[in-house]
Protein backbone atom coordinates (compact mmCIF):
# COMPACT_ATOMS: atom_id res chain seq x y z
CA UNK A 1 0.00 0.00 0.00
CA UNK A 2 2.93 2.31 -0.56
CA UNK A 3 1.55 4.31 -3.47
CA UNK A 4 -2.12 3.77 -2.55
CA UNK A 5 -1.86 5.51 0.81
CA UNK A 6 0.09 8.43 -0.61
CA UNK A 7 -2.42 8.81 -3.44
CA UNK A 8 -5.17 8.90 -0.81
CA UNK A 9 -3.38 11.67 1.02
CA UNK A 10 -2.51 13.55 -2.15
CA UNK A 11 -5.99 13.40 -3.72
CA UNK A 12 -7.75 13.97 -0.40
CA UNK A 13 -10.62 15.95 -1.87
CA UNK A 14 -11.65 13.36 -4.44
CA UNK A 15 -11.45 10.47 -2.01
CA UNK A 16 -13.28 12.43 0.69
CA UNK A 17 -16.09 13.01 -1.79
CA UNK A 18 -16.25 9.32 -2.62
CA UNK A 19 -16.08 8.39 1.06
CA UNK A 20 -18.92 10.81 1.80
CA UNK A 21 -21.09 9.17 -0.85
CA UNK A 22 -20.38 5.75 0.65
CA UNK A 23 -21.07 7.16 4.12
CA UNK A 24 -24.45 8.62 3.12
CA UNK A 25 -25.61 5.52 1.27
CA UNK A 26 -24.57 3.32 4.21
CA UNK A 27 -26.38 5.64 6.61
CA UNK A 28 -29.50 5.34 4.48
CA UNK A 29 -29.21 1.57 4.17
CA UNK A 30 -28.66 1.12 7.90
CA UNK A 31 -31.66 3.27 8.81
CA UNK A 32 -33.79 1.50 6.22
CA UNK A 33 -32.67 -1.90 7.55
CA UNK A 34 -33.57 -0.98 11.13
CA UNK A 35 -36.89 0.42 10.00
CA UNK A 36 -37.71 -2.61 7.86
CA UNK A 37 -37.01 -4.91 10.79
CA UNK A 38 -38.98 -2.62 13.13
CA UNK A 39 -42.02 -2.50 10.86
CA UNK A 40 -41.84 -6.24 10.33
CA UNK A 41 -41.76 -6.78 14.07
CA UNK A 42 -44.91 -4.68 14.48
CA UNK A 43 -46.55 -6.66 11.75
CA UNK A 44 -45.70 -10.25 12.60
CA UNK A 45 -44.20 -10.68 16.06
CA UNK A 46 -47.37 -12.26 17.49
CA UNK A 47 -47.01 -14.97 14.84
CA UNK A 48 -43.25 -15.50 14.97
CA UNK A 49 -43.43 -15.78 18.77
CA UNK A 50 -46.14 -18.46 18.72
CA UNK A 51 -45.20 -21.47 20.88
CA UNK A 52 -45.47 -23.79 17.86
CA UNK A 53 -43.41 -24.92 14.92
CA UNK A 54 -46.09 -25.23 12.24
CA UNK A 55 -49.23 -23.30 11.32
CA UNK A 56 -52.14 -25.07 9.56
CA UNK A 57 -54.46 -23.05 7.33
CA UNK A 58 -57.71 -24.20 5.77
CA UNK A 59 -57.08 -24.57 2.04
CA UNK A 60 -59.00 -22.20 -0.20
CA UNK A 61 -58.64 -23.33 -3.77
CA UNK A 62 -55.32 -22.47 -5.36
CA UNK A 63 -54.67 -19.23 -3.51
CA UNK A 64 -51.79 -18.95 -1.04
CA UNK A 65 -52.58 -19.44 2.65
CA UNK A 66 -53.98 -16.31 4.26
CA UNK A 67 -54.92 -15.48 7.83
CA UNK A 68 -57.87 -13.40 6.66
CA UNK A 69 -59.37 -16.17 4.50
CA UNK A 70 -58.64 -19.22 6.63
CA UNK A 71 -61.44 -20.83 8.74
CA UNK A 72 -60.67 -24.21 10.24
CA UNK A 73 -63.46 -26.64 11.16
CA UNK A 74 -63.87 -28.77 14.24
CA UNK A 75 -63.13 -31.91 12.17
CA UNK A 76 -59.84 -30.51 10.90
CA UNK A 77 -58.74 -29.71 14.43
CA UNK A 78 -59.70 -33.12 15.83
CA UNK A 79 -58.11 -35.01 12.95
CA UNK A 80 -54.89 -33.01 13.19
CA UNK A 81 -54.54 -33.99 16.86
CA UNK A 82 -54.46 -37.59 15.72
CA UNK A 83 -51.81 -37.24 13.00
CA UNK A 84 -48.73 -39.29 14.03
CA UNK A 85 -45.82 -37.07 15.02
CA UNK A 86 -48.06 -34.15 16.03
CA UNK A 87 -47.67 -33.67 19.79
CA UNK A 88 -50.11 -30.79 20.17
CA UNK A 89 -52.58 -29.18 17.79
CA UNK A 90 -54.16 -26.04 19.22
CA UNK A 91 -56.81 -23.77 17.81
CA UNK A 92 -55.90 -20.14 17.24
CA UNK A 93 -58.55 -17.57 16.38
CA UNK A 94 -57.58 -14.15 15.01
CA UNK A 95 -59.87 -11.16 14.42
CA UNK A 96 -59.25 -7.45 14.38
CA UNK A 97 -61.38 -5.71 16.97
CA UNK A 98 -61.65 -2.87 19.40
CA UNK A 99 -60.56 -3.06 23.01
CA UNK A 100 -61.91 -0.39 25.38
CA UNK A 101 -61.34 0.49 28.98
CA UNK A 102 -63.47 3.24 30.45
CA UNK A 103 -63.13 6.22 28.14
CA UNK A 104 -60.11 4.87 26.32
CA UNK A 105 -60.22 2.44 23.47
CA UNK A 106 -58.02 1.26 20.65
CA UNK A 107 -57.89 -1.11 17.73
CA UNK A 108 -56.27 -4.45 18.54
CA UNK A 109 -55.79 -7.95 17.25
CA UNK A 110 -57.94 -10.34 19.29
CA UNK A 111 -56.33 -13.78 19.55
CA UNK A 112 -58.40 -16.72 20.79
CA UNK A 113 -56.07 -19.25 22.41
CA UNK A 114 -56.39 -22.40 24.49
CA UNK A 115 -54.38 -21.38 27.55
CA UNK A 116 -56.43 -18.36 28.72
CA UNK A 117 -59.42 -18.91 31.02
CA UNK A 118 -62.94 -17.92 29.90
CA UNK A 119 -63.77 -14.36 30.91
CA UNK A 120 -60.18 -13.32 31.25
CA UNK A 121 -57.87 -11.39 28.90
CA UNK A 122 -54.08 -11.08 28.63
CA UNK A 123 -52.91 -7.76 27.18
CA UNK A 124 -49.73 -7.20 25.22
CA UNK A 125 -47.59 -4.50 26.77
CA UNK A 126 -48.40 -2.08 23.95
CA UNK A 127 -52.09 -2.52 24.52
CA UNK A 128 -51.81 -2.18 28.30
CA UNK A 129 -49.91 1.05 27.77
CA UNK A 130 -52.52 2.47 25.42
CA UNK A 131 -55.33 1.61 27.79
CA UNK A 132 -53.35 2.88 30.76
CA UNK A 133 -54.25 -0.28 32.69
CA UNK A 134 -52.30 -2.63 34.88
CA UNK A 135 -53.57 -5.98 36.12
CA UNK A 136 -55.02 -5.47 39.60
CA UNK A 137 -54.87 -1.71 39.07
CA UNK A 138 -57.57 0.77 38.17
CA UNK A 139 -58.74 -0.65 34.85
CA UNK A 140 -59.05 -4.31 35.54
CA UNK A 141 -61.99 -4.73 33.22
CA UNK A 142 -61.85 -4.18 29.47
CA UNK A 143 -64.55 -4.45 26.85
CA UNK A 144 -64.06 -6.39 23.65
CA UNK A 145 -66.90 -6.44 21.12
CA UNK A 146 -69.46 -5.58 23.77
CA UNK A 147 -68.31 -8.14 26.32
CA UNK A 148 -66.43 -7.54 29.57
CA UNK A 149 -63.17 -9.33 30.35
CA UNK A 150 -61.00 -9.29 33.46
CA UNK A 151 -57.36 -8.48 32.80
CA UNK A 152 -55.30 -11.33 34.21
CA UNK A 153 -51.84 -10.41 32.96
CA UNK A 154 -49.72 -8.24 30.68
CA UNK A 155 -47.30 -10.17 28.54
CA UNK A 156 -44.74 -9.28 25.91
CA UNK A 157 -44.57 -6.72 23.12
CA UNK A 158 -46.37 -8.87 20.59
CA UNK A 159 -48.21 -7.21 17.77
CA UNK A 160 -50.01 -8.33 14.67
CA UNK A 161 -50.69 -6.35 11.53
CA UNK A 162 -49.38 -3.18 13.27
CA UNK A 163 -51.89 -3.57 16.14
CA UNK A 164 -51.28 -4.67 19.74
CA UNK A 165 -52.67 -8.04 20.83
CA UNK A 166 -55.31 -9.14 23.33
CA UNK A 167 -55.42 -12.87 24.11
CA UNK A 168 -58.75 -14.37 25.21
CA UNK A 169 -59.91 -17.95 25.48
CA UNK A 170 -60.81 -19.70 22.24
CA UNK A 171 -64.34 -20.24 23.55
CA UNK A 172 -64.82 -16.51 24.19
CA UNK A 173 -63.24 -15.78 20.81
CA UNK A 174 -65.77 -18.01 19.03
CA UNK A 175 -68.56 -16.10 20.76
CA UNK A 176 -67.23 -12.57 20.16
CA UNK A 177 -66.15 -13.29 16.63
CA UNK A 178 -69.60 -14.59 15.89
CA UNK A 179 -68.27 -17.09 13.41
CA UNK A 180 -69.29 -20.64 12.79
CA UNK A 181 -65.66 -21.75 12.47
CA UNK A 182 -63.81 -23.10 15.53
CA UNK A 183 -60.65 -21.07 14.80
CA UNK A 184 -58.66 -19.25 12.13
CA UNK A 185 -55.70 -21.62 12.07
CA UNK A 186 -54.30 -24.57 14.00
CA UNK A 187 -50.84 -24.35 15.56
CA UNK A 188 -48.83 -27.56 15.77
CA UNK A 189 -45.98 -28.76 17.84
CA UNK A 190 -44.40 -31.74 16.13
CA UNK A 191 -41.73 -34.26 16.89
CA UNK A 192 -39.80 -36.43 14.47
CA UNK A 193 -40.70 -36.06 10.82
CA UNK A 194 -44.49 -36.31 10.46
CA UNK A 195 -46.04 -36.73 7.01
CA UNK A 196 -47.73 -33.33 6.93
CA UNK A 197 -48.36 -33.34 3.20
CA UNK A 198 -50.50 -36.47 3.39
CA UNK A 199 -52.54 -35.03 6.26
CA UNK A 200 -52.97 -31.74 4.37
CA UNK A 201 -54.33 -33.58 1.31
CA UNK A 202 -56.66 -35.68 3.41
CA UNK A 203 -58.03 -32.84 5.54
CA UNK A 204 -58.07 -30.00 2.99
CA UNK A 205 -55.49 -27.87 4.81
CA UNK A 206 -52.17 -26.19 4.05
CA UNK A 207 -49.36 -26.45 6.62
CA UNK A 208 -46.46 -24.00 6.66
CA UNK A 209 -43.46 -23.50 8.96
CA UNK A 210 -44.13 -20.93 11.66
CA UNK A 211 -41.39 -18.68 10.33
CA UNK A 212 -42.95 -18.73 6.85
CA UNK A 213 -46.43 -17.96 8.20
CA UNK A 214 -45.96 -14.12 8.19
CA UNK A 215 -46.31 -14.24 4.40
CA UNK A 216 -49.97 -15.11 5.03
CA UNK A 217 -50.53 -11.72 6.69
CA UNK A 218 -52.00 -9.60 3.91
CA UNK A 219 -49.90 -6.46 4.23
CA UNK A 220 -46.62 -8.11 5.20
CA UNK A 221 -45.35 -9.42 1.88
CA UNK A 222 -45.94 -6.20 -0.05
CA UNK A 223 -44.66 -3.93 2.72
CA UNK A 224 -41.57 -5.97 3.44
CA UNK A 225 -41.01 -6.67 -0.24
CA UNK A 226 -40.92 -3.01 -1.23
CA UNK A 227 -38.59 -2.08 1.64
CA UNK A 228 -36.23 -4.93 0.75
CA UNK A 229 -36.33 -3.82 -2.88
CA UNK A 230 -35.27 -0.30 -1.86
CA UNK A 231 -32.44 -1.76 0.16
CA UNK A 232 -31.35 -3.90 -2.74
CA UNK A 233 -31.37 -0.90 -5.06
CA UNK A 234 -29.26 1.12 -2.64
CA UNK A 235 -26.69 -1.68 -2.53
CA UNK A 236 -26.65 -1.90 -6.33
CA UNK A 237 -26.38 1.90 -6.70
CA UNK A 238 -23.45 2.06 -4.30
CA UNK A 239 -21.60 -0.72 -6.11
CA UNK A 240 -22.14 1.11 -9.41
CA UNK A 241 -21.11 4.52 -8.05
CA UNK A 242 -17.95 3.07 -6.53
CA UNK A 243 -17.24 1.16 -9.73
CA UNK A 244 -17.68 4.35 -11.77
CA UNK A 245 -15.42 6.35 -9.45
CA UNK A 246 -12.62 3.82 -9.58
CA UNK A 247 -13.03 3.44 -13.35
CA UNK A 248 -12.32 7.15 -13.80
CA UNK A 249 -9.58 7.07 -11.19
CA UNK A 250 -7.90 4.09 -12.82
CA UNK A 251 -7.98 5.82 -16.22
CA UNK A 252 -6.37 8.89 -14.66
CA UNK A 253 -3.68 6.70 -13.15
CA UNK A 254 -2.80 4.85 -16.34
CA UNK A 255 0.40 6.89 -16.78
CA UNK A 256 1.57 6.22 -13.23
CA UNK A 257 0.71 2.55 -13.59
CA UNK A 258 2.73 2.33 -16.82
CA UNK A 259 5.72 3.91 -15.08
CA UNK A 260 5.45 1.55 -12.11
CA UNK A 261 5.24 -1.43 -14.45
CA UNK A 262 8.23 -0.20 -16.43
CA UNK A 263 10.14 0.13 -13.16
CA UNK A 264 9.44 -3.53 -12.42
CA UNK A 265 6.22 -3.60 -10.38
CA UNK A 266 4.23 -6.76 -11.09
CA UNK A 267 0.58 -6.52 -12.10
CA UNK A 268 -0.37 -8.39 -8.92
CA UNK A 269 1.43 -5.79 -6.79
CA UNK A 270 -0.41 -2.96 -8.55
CA UNK A 271 -3.81 -4.66 -8.28
CA UNK A 272 -3.34 -5.32 -4.56
CA UNK A 273 -2.25 -1.73 -4.03
CA UNK A 274 -5.29 -0.31 -5.84
CA UNK A 275 -7.77 -2.67 -4.18
CA UNK A 276 -6.39 -1.86 -0.74
CA UNK A 277 -6.99 1.80 -1.53
CA UNK A 278 -10.64 1.10 -2.38
CA UNK A 279 -11.07 -0.97 0.78
CA UNK A 280 -9.67 1.85 2.94
CA UNK A 281 -12.20 4.29 1.47
CA UNK A 282 -15.02 1.76 1.91
CA UNK A 283 -14.07 0.83 5.47
CA UNK A 284 -13.99 4.47 6.53
CA UNK A 285 -17.13 5.53 4.63
CA UNK A 286 -19.27 2.50 5.45
CA UNK A 287 -17.94 2.24 9.03
CA UNK A 288 -18.81 5.83 9.90
CA UNK A 289 -22.09 5.68 7.95
CA UNK A 290 -23.12 2.49 9.78
CA UNK A 291 -22.23 3.97 13.17
CA UNK A 292 -24.22 7.13 12.42
CA UNK A 293 -27.16 5.04 11.22
CA UNK A 294 -27.12 2.96 14.40
CA UNK A 295 -26.88 6.13 16.49
CA UNK A 296 -29.79 7.75 14.65
CA UNK A 297 -31.83 4.56 15.07
CA UNK A 298 -31.13 4.43 18.79
CA UNK A 299 -32.26 8.05 19.15
CA UNK A 300 -35.39 7.58 17.03
CA UNK A 301 -36.22 4.21 18.61
CA UNK A 302 -39.06 5.66 20.72
CA UNK A 303 -40.76 7.53 17.91
CA UNK A 304 -40.52 5.00 15.09
CA UNK A 305 -40.31 1.22 15.03
CA UNK A 306 -36.57 0.55 14.73
CA UNK A 307 -34.65 -2.62 15.47
CA UNK A 308 -31.01 -2.09 16.43
CA UNK A 309 -29.14 -5.36 16.01
CA UNK A 310 -26.15 -6.89 14.24
CA UNK A 311 -28.47 -7.84 11.38
CA UNK A 312 -29.56 -4.23 10.86
CA UNK A 313 -26.14 -2.57 11.31
CA UNK A 314 -23.13 -4.85 10.86
CA UNK A 315 -24.70 -6.80 7.99
CA UNK A 316 -25.54 -3.79 5.77
CA UNK A 317 -22.09 -2.29 6.48
CA UNK A 318 -20.41 -5.59 5.53
CA UNK A 319 -22.55 -5.90 2.38
CA UNK A 320 -21.67 -2.31 1.39
CA UNK A 321 -17.98 -3.04 1.79
CA UNK A 322 -18.13 -6.33 -0.12
CA UNK A 323 -20.25 -4.98 -3.00
CA UNK A 324 -18.16 -1.78 -3.16
CA UNK A 325 -14.96 -3.82 -3.27
CA UNK A 326 -16.46 -5.94 -6.04
CA UNK A 327 -17.37 -2.81 -8.02
CA UNK A 328 -13.90 -1.37 -7.47
CA UNK A 329 -12.25 -4.67 -8.39
CA UNK A 330 -14.06 -4.67 -11.74
CA UNK A 331 -12.82 -1.14 -12.43
CA UNK A 332 -9.30 -1.77 -11.18
CA UNK A 333 -8.74 -4.85 -13.33
CA UNK A 334 -8.06 -2.41 -16.21
CA UNK A 335 -4.61 -2.06 -14.63
CA UNK A 336 -3.83 -5.44 -16.17
CA UNK A 337 -4.06 -4.02 -19.68
CA UNK A 338 -1.81 -0.98 -19.15
CA UNK A 339 1.27 -1.29 -21.39
CA UNK A 340 4.51 -0.29 -19.61
CA UNK A 341 5.87 0.66 -23.03
CA UNK A 342 3.80 3.85 -22.91
CA UNK A 343 6.05 5.09 -20.09
CA UNK A 344 8.94 5.22 -22.55
CA UNK A 345 9.31 7.96 -25.12
CA UNK A 346 7.61 11.29 -25.35
CA UNK A 347 4.02 10.09 -25.30
CA UNK A 348 3.35 11.41 -21.82
Amino acid sequence: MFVALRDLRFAKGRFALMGAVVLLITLLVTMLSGLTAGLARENISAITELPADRVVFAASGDSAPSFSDSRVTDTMWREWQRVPGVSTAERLGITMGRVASGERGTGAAVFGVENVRDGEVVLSSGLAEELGGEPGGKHTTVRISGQDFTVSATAGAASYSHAPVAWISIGDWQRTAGQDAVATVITLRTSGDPDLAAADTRLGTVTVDRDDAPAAIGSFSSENGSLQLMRGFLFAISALVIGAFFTVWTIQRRGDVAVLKALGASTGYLLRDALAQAVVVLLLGAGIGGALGAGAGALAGDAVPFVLSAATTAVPVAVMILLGAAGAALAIRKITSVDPLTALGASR
Partner: protein
Amino acid sequence: MTLRIDDVVLTYPDGDRTLTALDHVDLDVARGEFTAVVGPSGSGKSSLLAVAAMLLTPDSGRVTVAGHDVSGASPAARTRIRRDHVGVVFQQSNLLSSLTALEQLLVMAHISGASPRAAAVRARELLIAVDLADKEHKRPHQLSGGERQRVNIARALMNRPEVLLVDEPTSALDHERGIRIVSLLAGLTRENGLATVMVTHDLGTLPLVDRVLTMADARLSEDGRKTKADLLAAPMGAGE
Protein backbone atom coordinates in the same frame (compact mmCIF):
# COMPACT_ATOMS: atom_id res chain seq x y z
CA MET B 1 29.04 -8.18 -21.69
CA THR B 2 26.48 -6.77 -19.31
CA LEU B 3 24.07 -5.86 -22.07
CA ARG B 4 24.16 -7.81 -25.30
CA ILE B 5 21.80 -7.56 -28.25
CA ASP B 6 22.42 -10.10 -31.03
CA ASP B 7 20.99 -9.84 -34.53
CA VAL B 8 17.67 -8.46 -33.29
CA VAL B 9 14.80 -7.80 -35.70
CA LEU B 10 11.73 -5.91 -34.47
CA THR B 11 8.69 -5.13 -36.60
CA TYR B 12 5.47 -3.25 -35.87
CA PRO B 13 2.23 -4.09 -37.65
CA ASP B 14 1.47 -1.24 -40.08
CA GLY B 15 -1.84 -1.74 -41.83
CA ASP B 16 -1.54 -4.92 -43.89
CA ARG B 17 2.27 -4.59 -44.09
CA THR B 18 4.84 -4.49 -41.32
CA LEU B 19 7.22 -1.72 -40.41
CA THR B 20 10.75 -2.76 -39.50
CA ALA B 21 11.95 -0.71 -36.53
CA LEU B 22 15.12 -2.74 -35.83
CA ASP B 23 16.83 -4.46 -38.75
CA HIS B 24 19.40 -7.06 -37.62
CA VAL B 25 20.79 -4.89 -34.84
CA ASP B 26 23.79 -5.87 -32.67
CA LEU B 27 24.87 -4.03 -29.54
CA ASP B 28 27.33 -4.86 -26.76
CA VAL B 29 27.82 -2.65 -23.74
CA ALA B 30 30.36 -3.49 -21.05
CA ARG B 31 30.38 -2.50 -17.37
CA GLY B 32 31.37 1.11 -16.85
CA GLU B 33 30.81 1.98 -20.51
CA PHE B 34 28.71 5.02 -21.38
CA THR B 35 27.24 4.59 -24.87
CA ALA B 36 25.19 7.18 -26.72
CA VAL B 37 22.79 6.38 -29.58
CA VAL B 38 21.96 9.21 -31.96
CA GLY B 39 19.98 9.30 -35.17
CA PRO B 40 17.05 10.92 -36.90
CA SER B 41 13.53 10.82 -35.56
CA GLY B 42 11.74 7.56 -36.29
CA SER B 43 14.97 5.66 -36.89
CA GLY B 44 14.27 3.17 -34.08
CA LYS B 45 16.21 4.49 -31.07
CA SER B 46 13.38 4.20 -28.55
CA SER B 47 12.53 0.79 -29.98
CA LEU B 48 16.10 -0.32 -29.26
CA LEU B 49 15.79 0.83 -25.64
CA ALA B 50 12.41 -0.88 -25.30
CA VAL B 51 13.95 -4.16 -26.46
CA ALA B 52 16.89 -3.75 -24.06
CA ALA B 53 14.43 -2.95 -21.24
CA MET B 54 12.45 -6.11 -22.12
CA LEU B 55 9.34 -4.01 -22.69
CA LEU B 56 9.20 -5.38 -26.25
CA THR B 57 10.03 -8.88 -27.41
CA PRO B 58 11.89 -8.90 -30.74
CA ASP B 59 10.73 -11.00 -33.69
CA SER B 60 14.12 -12.71 -33.78
CA GLY B 61 17.56 -12.42 -32.25
CA ARG B 62 18.87 -12.70 -28.68
CA VAL B 63 18.85 -10.26 -25.79
CA THR B 64 21.09 -10.91 -22.78
CA VAL B 65 20.75 -8.70 -19.71
CA ALA B 66 23.18 -9.06 -16.80
CA GLY B 67 23.90 -12.63 -17.79
CA HIS B 68 20.25 -13.63 -18.28
CA ASP B 69 19.18 -14.70 -21.75
CA VAL B 70 15.73 -13.11 -21.78
CA SER B 71 14.68 -14.09 -25.31
CA GLY B 72 12.33 -16.85 -24.17
CA ALA B 73 11.53 -15.51 -20.68
CA SER B 74 7.94 -15.14 -19.49
CA PRO B 75 6.51 -11.63 -18.96
CA ALA B 76 6.72 -12.11 -15.18
CA ALA B 77 10.36 -13.20 -15.40
CA ARG B 78 11.18 -10.21 -17.62
CA THR B 79 9.49 -7.87 -15.12
CA ARG B 80 11.59 -9.40 -12.33
CA ILE B 81 14.87 -9.10 -14.28
CA ARG B 82 14.02 -5.50 -15.13
CA ARG B 83 13.27 -4.74 -11.49
CA ASP B 84 16.51 -6.29 -10.23
CA HIS B 85 19.04 -5.52 -12.98
CA VAL B 86 17.84 -2.63 -15.14
CA GLY B 87 17.42 1.05 -14.35
CA VAL B 88 15.30 3.13 -16.73
CA VAL B 89 15.46 6.93 -16.97
CA PHE B 90 12.52 8.25 -18.94
CA GLN B 91 12.46 11.07 -21.43
CA GLN B 92 10.07 13.03 -19.32
CA SER B 93 10.72 12.53 -15.71
CA ASN B 94 7.56 10.44 -15.25
CA LEU B 95 7.62 10.83 -11.50
CA LEU B 96 4.55 9.82 -9.48
CA SER B 97 2.71 12.99 -8.56
CA SER B 98 1.66 11.95 -5.04
CA LEU B 99 5.17 11.00 -3.88
CA THR B 100 7.94 13.17 -2.47
CA ALA B 101 11.42 12.99 -3.99
CA LEU B 102 12.52 10.57 -1.27
CA GLU B 103 9.43 8.39 -1.72
CA GLN B 104 10.01 8.16 -5.49
CA LEU B 105 13.13 6.21 -4.55
CA LEU B 106 11.62 4.26 -1.64
CA VAL B 107 8.84 2.90 -3.85
CA MET B 108 11.50 0.97 -5.78
CA ALA B 109 12.52 -0.85 -2.62
CA HIS B 110 8.87 -1.51 -1.81
CA ILE B 111 8.29 -3.03 -5.24
CA SER B 112 11.21 -5.40 -4.80
CA GLY B 113 10.40 -6.19 -1.17
CA ALA B 114 13.70 -4.83 0.17
CA SER B 115 14.10 -3.74 3.78
CA PRO B 116 12.72 -0.21 4.31
CA ARG B 117 15.54 0.71 6.69
CA ALA B 118 18.32 -0.12 4.23
CA ALA B 119 16.26 1.53 1.47
CA ALA B 120 16.03 4.80 3.38
CA VAL B 121 19.83 4.87 3.81
CA ARG B 122 20.38 4.08 0.11
CA ALA B 123 17.79 6.65 -1.03
CA ARG B 124 19.39 9.44 1.00
CA GLU B 125 22.84 8.53 -0.37
CA LEU B 126 21.50 8.74 -3.91
CA LEU B 127 19.76 12.05 -3.31
CA ILE B 128 23.07 13.39 -2.04
CA ALA B 129 24.81 11.99 -5.15
CA VAL B 130 22.40 13.89 -7.42
CA ASP B 131 22.65 16.96 -5.18
CA LEU B 132 19.04 16.97 -3.99
CA ALA B 133 19.52 16.25 -0.29
CA ASP B 134 17.63 19.41 0.65
CA LYS B 135 14.65 18.62 -1.62
CA GLU B 136 13.74 15.16 -0.33
CA HIS B 137 10.29 16.20 0.87
CA LYS B 138 9.30 18.05 -2.29
CA ARG B 139 6.69 16.64 -4.66
CA PRO B 140 7.24 16.71 -8.46
CA HIS B 141 5.20 19.90 -8.98
CA GLN B 142 7.49 21.66 -6.50
CA LEU B 143 10.67 20.69 -8.41
CA SER B 144 12.26 22.23 -11.51
CA GLY B 145 12.67 20.21 -14.71
CA GLY B 146 16.34 19.54 -14.00
CA GLU B 147 15.63 18.53 -10.42
CA ARG B 148 12.92 16.15 -11.58
CA GLN B 149 15.29 14.55 -14.04
CA ARG B 150 17.87 14.09 -11.27
CA VAL B 151 15.24 12.37 -9.09
CA ASN B 152 14.47 10.20 -12.10
CA ILE B 153 18.13 9.20 -12.38
CA ALA B 154 18.45 8.50 -8.66
CA ARG B 155 15.30 6.36 -8.83
CA ALA B 156 16.74 4.31 -11.69
CA LEU B 157 19.81 3.51 -9.55
CA MET B 158 17.85 2.58 -6.41
CA ASN B 159 17.91 -1.20 -6.90
CA ARG B 160 21.64 -1.21 -7.87
CA PRO B 161 21.12 -2.12 -11.54
CA GLU B 162 23.91 -3.32 -13.85
CA VAL B 163 22.27 -1.83 -16.93
CA LEU B 164 21.05 1.78 -17.19
CA LEU B 165 18.81 2.78 -20.09
CA VAL B 166 18.22 6.48 -20.69
CA ASP B 167 15.84 7.93 -23.30
CA GLU B 168 16.49 11.58 -24.21
CA PRO B 169 17.16 12.75 -20.65
CA THR B 170 17.80 16.34 -21.68
CA SER B 171 14.96 17.01 -24.13
CA ALA B 172 13.01 19.06 -21.61
CA LEU B 173 16.05 21.00 -20.38
CA ASP B 174 18.13 23.94 -21.60
CA HIS B 175 21.64 23.22 -22.85
CA GLU B 176 23.49 24.01 -19.65
CA ARG B 177 21.23 21.87 -17.50
CA GLY B 178 21.41 19.13 -20.13
CA ILE B 179 25.20 19.09 -19.88
CA ARG B 180 24.99 18.82 -16.10
CA ILE B 181 22.59 15.88 -16.27
CA VAL B 182 24.74 13.99 -18.78
CA SER B 183 27.93 14.55 -16.80
CA LEU B 184 26.10 13.26 -13.75
CA LEU B 185 25.17 10.14 -15.74
CA ALA B 186 28.78 9.75 -16.91
CA GLY B 187 30.08 9.95 -13.34
CA LEU B 188 27.50 7.49 -12.03
CA THR B 189 28.24 5.07 -14.88
CA ARG B 190 31.93 4.97 -13.95
CA GLU B 191 31.49 4.93 -10.17
CA ASN B 192 28.88 2.17 -10.23
CA GLY B 193 30.26 0.17 -13.18
CA LEU B 194 27.03 0.50 -15.13
CA ALA B 195 26.44 -0.49 -18.73
CA THR B 196 24.69 2.70 -19.83
CA VAL B 197 22.87 3.33 -23.11
CA MET B 198 21.60 6.85 -23.65
CA VAL B 199 19.48 7.98 -26.59
CA THR B 200 19.99 11.66 -27.27
CA HIS B 201 19.39 14.44 -29.77
CA ASP B 202 21.67 16.80 -27.90
CA LEU B 203 25.00 16.54 -29.73
CA GLY B 204 26.61 18.97 -27.32
CA THR B 205 26.60 16.26 -24.67
CA LEU B 206 28.50 13.72 -26.81
CA PRO B 207 32.02 14.70 -25.61
CA LEU B 208 30.96 13.26 -22.25
CA VAL B 209 30.29 9.70 -23.49
CA ASP B 210 32.67 6.82 -24.25
CA ARG B 211 31.13 5.67 -27.50
CA VAL B 212 28.64 7.03 -30.05
CA LEU B 213 26.48 4.77 -32.22
CA THR B 214 24.24 5.99 -35.00
CA MET B 215 20.80 4.66 -35.76
CA ALA B 216 19.48 5.19 -39.28
CA ASP B 217 16.65 3.38 -41.05
CA ALA B 218 16.39 0.75 -38.33
CA ARG B 219 20.11 -0.10 -38.55
CA LEU B 220 22.72 0.62 -35.94
CA SER B 221 26.09 1.67 -37.33
CA GLU B 222 29.14 -0.36 -36.38
CA ASP B 223 31.55 0.99 -33.81
CA GLY B 224 34.19 3.30 -35.16
CA ARG B 225 32.50 4.16 -38.42
CA LYS B 226 31.54 7.47 -37.02
CA THR B 227 33.53 9.16 -34.33
CA LYS B 228 32.42 11.86 -31.97
CA ALA B 229 34.47 14.30 -33.93
CA ASP B 230 32.68 13.38 -37.19
CA LEU B 231 29.32 13.83 -35.57
CA LEU B 232 30.24 17.16 -34.13
CA ALA B 233 31.72 18.36 -37.39
CA ALA B 234 28.63 17.44 -39.42
CA PRO B 235 25.71 17.90 -37.09
CA MET B 236 22.88 15.60 -37.76
CA GLY B 237 19.57 17.12 -38.69
CA ALA B 238 21.15 18.72 -41.74
CA GLY B 239 20.27 15.68 -43.82
CA GLU B 240 16.94 14.98 -42.13
